[in-house]
């Protein structure tokens, strides 16, 4: 089985978000880029499956400009065998999925995260599956490989399920897929330098959505404090003032 792990390059989760030019664009000055947390966990699970046997190869792929290569190198250092970068500014989820559809054809299992932590599009995985005419399972919280067959755990609203779906398949992963993300070891970082990182040109595609402007949330009014020894007052405030009880 060959696995493709889709890697979104996102600002570190603690980044202070700012915008430039009349709030029209994200200000990437000084931003630390990381592998999207879900993609990092997807890669971790792919590695575990490979170590258990039954997986020939793990490729990581990103649609992005040259600056994303350090993120792809990190994925190689974690243990992917090779990397593909489709050389284009990602415009929206539709554009990104169109670019990935070509590369993904050669794989049995494609892992996408449920959402990228920057634009929170929740789109690429499902769109890609539809473009390829293959099935997808979303909200995946576990993947096992038993006798060449995938056993998938997914969350449903109000519970969870275990299921099978034949490959090729896009699995869109979320919490539970792996517990702790793998951190590259020194040896991995050395080896990653020699692993192939192929750059391929983009195909023609247009974005279907456009970000017009951004806003930061209005600052919150000061927190109203209640005394520790008079905690009952809190319930009165919630009942009479906030009217939520």
């Amino acid at each position, binding site marked *: 089985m060959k696995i493709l792990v889709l890697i979104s390059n996102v600002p570190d989760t*603690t*980044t202070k*978000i700012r*915008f430039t030019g009349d709030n029209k664009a994200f200000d990437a000055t000084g931003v630390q880029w990381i592998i999207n*947390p879900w993609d990092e966990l997807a890669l971790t699970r792919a590695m575990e499956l490979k170590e258990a046997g039954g997986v020939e190869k793990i490729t990581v792929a990103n649609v992005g400009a040259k600056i994303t290569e350090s993120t792809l190198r990190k994925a190689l250092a974690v243990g992917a065998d090779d990397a593909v970068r489709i050389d284009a500014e990602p415009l929206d*989820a539709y554009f990104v*999925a169109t670019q990935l559809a070509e590369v993904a054809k050669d794989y049995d299992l494609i892992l996408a995260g*449920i959402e990228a*932590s920057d*634009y*929170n*599009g*929740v*789109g690429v*995985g*499902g*769109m890609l*599956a539809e473009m390829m005419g293959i*099935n*997808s*399972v*979303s*909200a995946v919280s576990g993947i096992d490989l038993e006798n060449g067959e995938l056993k998938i755990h997914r969350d*449903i*609203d*109000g*519970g*969870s*399920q*275990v*299921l*099978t779906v034949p490959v090729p398949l896009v699995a*869109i992963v979320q*919490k*539970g897929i792996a*517990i702790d993300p793998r951190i590259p070891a020194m040896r991995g970082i050395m080896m990653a330098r020699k692993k192939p990182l192929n750059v391929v040109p983009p195909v023609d595609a247009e974005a*279907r*959505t*456009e*970000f*017009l402007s951004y*806003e*930061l*949330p209005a600052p*919150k009014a000061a*927190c*109203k*404090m*209640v005394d*520790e*020894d008079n*905690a*009952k007052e*809190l*319930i*009165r405030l*919630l009942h009479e003032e*906030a009217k*939520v*009880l």
Partner: protein
Amino acid sequence: MSVLVYTENWGGKFKKLSYEIVSFATGIAKAMGSSVTALSIGHVADEELKSLGKYGANKVLNVQDDRFESLDNKALADAVTKAAENEGAKVVIFAHNNEGKAIAPRVSVKLNAGLVSGVMGLPVSVDPFVVRKKVFTGKAFANIQIKTDVKVITFAQNSYEVTENPTDVAIEAFDPQIADNEFNTVIKDTHLITGKVLLTDAEIVVSGGRGMKGPENWGGLEELGELLGAGMACSRPVSDEDWRSHEEHVGQTGKIIAPNLYMAFGISGAIQHLGGVSSSKFIVAINKDPEAPIFEASDYGIVGDAFKVIPQLIEAVKEMKANK
């Protein structure tokens, strides 16, 4: 021309989210001068289907076909697409929950439509079609234009009021004619959470963090939760340590919730935690550290020991209920 809204059911029943999303669809349809068609897949009694008319649905397409019980993403997307084509839908709306997130992206490709996920409240404008959503995991909002003729959106729960709009509703049987070989998801096992308020539905949420010191100390929180009819939540370290079930983990890497009231006990308020709860209408923090960042995100707070505060809150809620 119509607005198509996908209304899933839970054991044949709708819930508040269903009425909220139909109200939302009605709001969009009014702005566009079109009608609302709801699509229901599964065994839902006619009376229940008719209840959607109360919130503005003009028509309900009723698909009764057991094969969809496996929630096969490809087959479901095909079915919704056929319904959308059948209705000449210009806007297709899903809930921003597990099922909606699974199907909406596929449907957008099939309908040559642009997709925006997690839309909050009515569009800023319908021509051009501009919607508002959260980006950077709750740290900012964006106004996004969908440039295609047909639009697909997922709707963020609790971002629109349930609004009555009594309408004569027609129930029509609909067969999307999906071939057997389109279904290839096979369910081996299903586990349903019963007897608890589902976190994503809860109007009040009681949440505990590492400051609660250990799983043996949750008794008070549970009692408070029960009295308030609340859902229970926790921070990530609490679920990582298995003090509480993973289903309760909220935050960037857990569930994202938007209750009316979120009560955080012994939670510091890390940015990744707030990403999952910042849409709550009111946030209350109980923390012994006055500098804890959770207070910056809170409407009401108590600087103090959770173990001293919880019994007082329980007593106060009991008194409040007795006086009602």
